[in-house]
């Protein structure tokens, strides 16, 4: 086999293995071990990693984004309002939430994407708090009272054939949400991988390295930044909307500054140079907290110490551990 084909087939093998793991092995293991609480934990990881993927994408054009919580909140409210006040099916509100966030992010992004470095980081941090206060102040979000008792996602049928069952009638709702989140996550990262390896991805990398240079060779940087930021916010909105469906409620505090910071940390921990960094980072940071649940009052202490130890060992992210081996294989 020639080298490119070998690479491609190896890659396909990895993808197939990952799909089998996420869609078959994990549910089967959970059922076999009787640890059904892990469904929700892994569902959360999947959803949070979708939102983190958006943050990662803004890193890809050289922007530190600490405002993803704002879009998760906006997406959640979009879905909740459409479902409860207009009777729209959840499955339609899901893309609607993403698109609403993308539209919102174009409005917000136009002025703020001119900023760089810590300036952009800080303004997005403020954005999260502005989103919370807006949700508290607006009548349509019901302010402090939040929106509660949101119905579960309903049935989707095409020509009388059920494509997605009514979640309220499911014997195991957790499994339903797990599959929903897992499939969304797979789609998200497949799309992300495709994007990074496309012409657009190369342009993004040129932006990350030197905006002036990219601009001087004819890249429309303003347009590119907006597109990437809109995709990023779309992902945040999707993640938020599914969370609202699970908790069947949303409050202004459902996504806050802490979440925005967590999304960013997930990317750092996984590694900024790796498409799958946010997924791994989310898994470690979120799951890690749950695993330490038995350590009681020392939970936060141990958790924080482990994070610091990880950064000291691997300052370029967890996935950087593969770097040396990769280089050997390449030469």
């Amino acid at each position, binding site marked *: 086999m020639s080298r490119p084909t070998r690479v491609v087939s190896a890659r396909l093998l990895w993808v197939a293995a990952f799909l089998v793991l996420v869609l078959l092995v994990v549910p089967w293991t959970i059922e076999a*071990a009787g*640890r*059904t*609480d892990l*469904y*929700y*934990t892994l569902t*959360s990881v999947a959803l949070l990693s979708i939102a983190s993927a958006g943050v990662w994408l803004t890193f890809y054009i050289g922007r530190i984004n600490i405002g993803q919580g704002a879009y998760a909140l906006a997406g959640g409210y979009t879905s909740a309002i459409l479902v409860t006040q207009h009777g729209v099916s959840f499955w339609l509100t899901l893309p609607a939430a993403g698109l609403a966030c993308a539209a919102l992010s174009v409005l917000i992004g136009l002025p703020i994407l001119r900023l760089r470095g810590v300036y952009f980081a800080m303004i997005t941090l403020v954005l999260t708090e502005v989103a919370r*206060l807006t949700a*508290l102040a607006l009548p349509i979000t019901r*302010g*402090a*009272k*939040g929106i*509660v*008792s949101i119905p*579960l996602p309903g049935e989707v049928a095409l020509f009388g054939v059920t494509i997605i069952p009514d979640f309220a009638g499911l014997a195991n*709702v*957790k499994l339903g949400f797990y599959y929903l989140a897992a499939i969304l996550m797979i789609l998200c990262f497949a799309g992300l991988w495709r994007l990074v390896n496309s012409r657009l991805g190369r342009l993004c990398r040129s932006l990350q390295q030197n905006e002036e240079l990219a601009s001087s060779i004819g890249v429309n940087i303003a347009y590119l930044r907006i597109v990437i930021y809109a995709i990023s916010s779309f992902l945040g909105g999707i993640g938020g909307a599914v*969370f609202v469906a*699970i*908790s*069947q*409620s949303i*409050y*202004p*505090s*459902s996504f806050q500054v*802490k*979440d925005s910071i967590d999304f960013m940390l997930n990317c750092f921990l996984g590694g900024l140079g790796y498409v799958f960094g946010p997924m791994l980072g989310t898994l470690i940071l979120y799951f890690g*907290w*749950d*695993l*330490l*649940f*038995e350590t*009681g*009052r020392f*939970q*936060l202490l141990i958790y924080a110490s482990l994070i610091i130890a990880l950064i000291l*060992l691997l300052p370029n992210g967890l996935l950087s*551990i593969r770097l*040396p*081996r990769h280089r050997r294989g390449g030469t």
Partner: protein
Amino acid sequence: MNRRSVLASLVLPLVASLAIGAGAQAANPKLKIGFVGVTSGPAAAWGISNVRSMQARAVWLNEIGGVKIGGKTYDIEIVTFDDQKDPKRAIAGMEKMAQEGIRYVVGPNVDDGAAAVRPVAEQNGIIYFPYAFPKALYSPPASNAVLGMVASYQSGPAIYKHLKENKGVKTIAFISANESDPLSQRADGIAAAKALGLKIVSDSVTYQVDTTDFTPVITPVIRTNPDLLVLSGVAPANAPQIIRSARELGFKGLISTETAQDATVLMEGAGKLADGFISVGGASTPEIASDAMKEFVARYTKMFGEYNDESNTKVYALEYIIETLKANPAAIDDVKAFKKTMDTFSAPNPYMKGDAKLKYVGSSSFGQRRQIAVPLVVNEFRGGKFETLFVAEVD
């Protein structure tokens, strides 16, 4: 490669043991009661006073030989989950409780968390005792949540009425943090004041919970010179600062809140300026505390080094769970039986002098009995201690 294997050998066994290991089972049967709430971060005080009151009571009960339910003696074990005041984590916590086979959970401490765990609790058959006030949680069709304290819309009217009749209060002002829980409580307070015919002179001033200087926040309120200033849903950390700022600006009227406070915190933060501050408490003031309450406070203090007066109101949920289980042993793993017993349950209140009863109430607020009857004890702070102003009942 080297660093990688070192890391793997360090991390893998740890993860494996934490993920799989359920821990060794003790010989005595254990009755696990859960807690899902916030015990770290900015709001840690709410959850910690909660958890500690449960732990102190559990150790005490186990020391005197455990609890006898239906001919079997159990040791009480408290399983705690820190949700970091994040509703998404609270759901994970409730799932964890279901996984541990726990049927009765105390918490969460805030509105958004309590609303978020509702689907999980109902799917898994868990009864939970939130410290959150939204009526939707307790009114049909919801049926698995039991309000663990006196709600602001119950204590507010009682306090305002008392002050109107005894202290001649005519005008009232509200101030609250711009967060869900305090804002909802402010809305309840405003409604109650209107119903009593009090004149509301200021009801729109809010502050960020992280405010370090309340003088600018409170200046516009003080200008309206109300007879009574209500700190809606005030966190114990903020109360002394607001009181101090108000008094230093020359405010002479009364100050009250509908949440529980801690005497030491008030004394350290505001000193003499906090004298006359009215808050809701449990049953630890000397006039009404029983010997059991005094012993509870002593044990708590010994166990954790310092008592927290907020715990007075939080000691009851565990007591209710255990006493209801005693009354109907079938409820130990069947929440339907528990719900049935709730309608008729009655037992003596061990923490209060006299013949007060533990029973489930809430019919008038929620249309069903989904609230524990905690004596509504209204305290006045004086000279570093709480004194009982009056005691009322919630129906």
